[in-house]
């Protein structure tokens, strides 16, 4: 089994966001970066799908991590290599040169070259929250797709995915190659099983941590660099940002004397009922 996991580093949501004076950009200077949490979950699921759930674990497949971004994002890739991914690809690009469609195009070229069985990715990145790249990529590749996966079981030649939807669970059976985007629950102890993992096996809750020896070994794992021209030639940006503005400051609240006054204010001032 070969799995491709696209990763994005995002500004730590704990940072206070600032808008540049020109207002067409978010000011990224001095921000702390981290890997997009949903991508971490995708990586964790990919590692689970390519091992046997025994101690010590045996690797049964290959996990390739990919990011599209500037040189600094190699740190993100190497952390992923340290947690267990086998090799990495970086497509060199400045953040400003990217939108969802451009990234999907770049990933498409890489998928076509690497021919993974599954592209496993986060359902969305927590910076822009656009929730597009997985879907655009599946469409361009003409692959079957499951979004917001809560569980994944490997089957012969495909995967069985469950998604939590309003009022229940929706099951999708996909043939490989396919695109699966994952939700938070995918890192629960019993959510991912490879064909070789016993169903009684429970994974550790959450994502795994890089062991110190693996950190040192990660430096020797392959990390290829491509240019955006290599993989997305001729693609234009479709999303253009014209203005950012911070949300309005919250005004102070008021105390109401009783329910009647509350209802009256909701109707006449807030105009919500």
């Amino acid at each position: 089994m070969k799995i491709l996991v696209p990763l994005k580093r995002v500004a730590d949501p704990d940072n206070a966001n600032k808008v540049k004076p020109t207002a067409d950009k978010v000011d990224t200077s001095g921000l702390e970066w981290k890997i997009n949490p949903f991508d971490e979950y995708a990586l964790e699921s990919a590692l689970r799908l390519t091992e046997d759930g025994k101690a010590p674990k045996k690797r049964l497949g290959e996990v390739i991590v990919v990011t599209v971004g500037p040189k600094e994002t190699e740190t993100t890739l190497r952390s992923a290599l340290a947690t267990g991914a086998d090799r990495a690809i970086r497509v060199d690009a400045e953040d400003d040169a990217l939108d969802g469609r451009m990234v999907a195009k770049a990933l498409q070229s890489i998928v076509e070259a690497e021919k993974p069985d599954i592209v496993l990715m986060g359902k969305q990145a927590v910076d822009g929250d656009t929730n597009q790249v997985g879907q655009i990529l599946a469409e361009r590749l003409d692959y079957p797709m499951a979004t917001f996966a809560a569980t994944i079981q490997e089957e012969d030649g495909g995967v069985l995915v469950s998604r939590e939807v309003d009022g229940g669970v929706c099951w999708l059976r996909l043939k490989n190659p396919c695109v699966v985007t994952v939700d938070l629950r995918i890192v629960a102890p019993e959510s991912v099983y490879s064909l070789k993992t016993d169903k009684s096996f429970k994974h550790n809750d959450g994502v795994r941590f890089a062991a110190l020896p693996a950190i040192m070994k990660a430096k020797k794992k392959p990390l290829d660099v491509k240019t955006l021209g290599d993989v997305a030639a001729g693609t234009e940006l479709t999303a253009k940002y014209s203005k950012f503005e911070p949300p309005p400051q919250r005004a102070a609240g008021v105390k109401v004397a009783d329910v009647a006054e509350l209802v009256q204010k909701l109707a006449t001032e807030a105009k919500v009922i």
Partner: protein
Amino acid sequence: MPNPLIDDRFVDFLLYEVLHAERLCELDHFSEHSRETFDMAMATSRGFARDVLYPAYKPMDEAAAHLDNGCVRVHPLMHEIFPRMVELGIVNGTRPESVGGLQLPMTIATLTGGYLMAGNLSAFGYLGLTAGAARLIESFGSDELKRTYMDRMYAGEWTGTMALTEPQAGSSLTDVKTSATPTMDGHYLIKGSKVFISGGDQDLTDNIVHLTLGRIDGAPAGIKGVSLFAIPKNRLENSKLVPNDCSTVGVFHKIGWRGLPSIALNFGEEGDCHGWLVGEPHRGIRHMFQMMNEARLMVGMNGAATASVAYHEAVDYAQNRPQGRGFTDRDPSTPQIPIIKHADVRRMLLRQKAIVEGAIALLAAAGMYFDISEHAPSEEERHRAWLLLELLTPIAKSFPAEKGFEANALAVQVHGGYGYTSEYMPESWLRDQKLNSIHEGTTGMQSMDLLGRKVVQEGGAALRALAEEITETSRRAREAGVPEELGSKLEGGMTAIGAVTMHLGELGMNGDIDGMMLHSVDYLEMFMAVVVGWQWLQMATAAKKGLEKHPEKADFYEGKLCAAQYWINTEIPRVGALAALCRSGEDSYARMQPDWF
């Protein structure tokens, strides 16, 4: 906000803006490392501490390990945690590649360890002890001992303990009685009773190796007759483990560190306990002493980490607990303000911050002196770093323990009545903290080590090196625009230490050792104020520079400058009074007779 255990931003500041830890990678020994490997190690430890260790802390505190049919049963959560902790490769992280380690600098390991300790002191304890015990075998054991024990301990297959204390031999290890009778087969038959042995029994691994002090039959009396032994709980015979006549007599009920059992342990009740000599006969204490700095820095970090997690809990509480109004706003119809808006609550929080971050900075600095003392290219540089490390060790051990206890008490205080209940966490950390001034040499013993050995060794060379460092720090602080008075106060404090040390040293030279040592704890106290002030001045300097470069991070840097100002203005003025007390020969407790109590 979930408790961060230790502030990440602060740790990064320490490493890369104060200590410039990336420079360590220029040393041959660390050339495989880079800031990236440091950061990844840090990320692992942070994540593991927060997601795995911390959630297990309270359940482990509530249900301590217990004795069941002669065997200790540890908390069920520990069974999940232990293998995962081992998998992370932290037991031998700092050890050389030749023994399977990763040559991580002590500077880094001190801080990665700090997160684990802050998350769950007891859980970390199993590994900390194992690392310490394996380290002794690595340094002094035969190849056979290394293969049989060290390798398995570094791999986390077996754990280790330090089994030193006996009922009549606590602070005074000279008095250990455990006996070792040589046999023709190369091992010794061991007989003796140990108390308080942490991790002395557990059901996590199928073997435990006790690094034990004992006396070979006929050995000279006193310290020069104590040897070091490795005593496995189960010994290997024909590659099978058979019981080695080590019995658990009882588990101590203790007020803290409840996830890590401390037991009374008997060797050789049946006359069949085999032990193997580690290192040379009669040099056991000396061997132990060589590992002392590492062990004491670890205990120092236990203290700093325990104070840190409580400090963060207190800050969060203070931001969210509404109570009362400002002095000038007494209108009861206005909402109550969060207690952090009361200056006195901020006093308590700032004191905690100054202690916690001062302690962590001191430990990281000691870690760096450790790395330099072992791996710098020139003998001169190594020696100077070693002198400073030697001098700083008793302070880096005692300051976090003693002032950390005060910080832990303040965290309870900030929580008011709620802090006094076990519904809230701070009381448990207060209980944990108390041990740190007792084990690994009590504060009293540390003060004697400082005054009786460290400041006088090599004709006061260490003290001179410290004075040079402080002068240099003060110069840099001035250059960076830190208020002049902070540096000059600190230099004044150092001068006072120099003068009082001269005076006490003379008393000692003239044979009045009792007079010299009478105020050793006051001397330690004075020393702590200055050494931690020195750390704060370094941080203030880095903060000034940071503020210029990154005005957008003013909150962070201003906080450092305020804490530096607080420490130096509140603590350094006490130095003069303490110095006067040390010199005065004030003899109330010297004169006080046991019968007068």
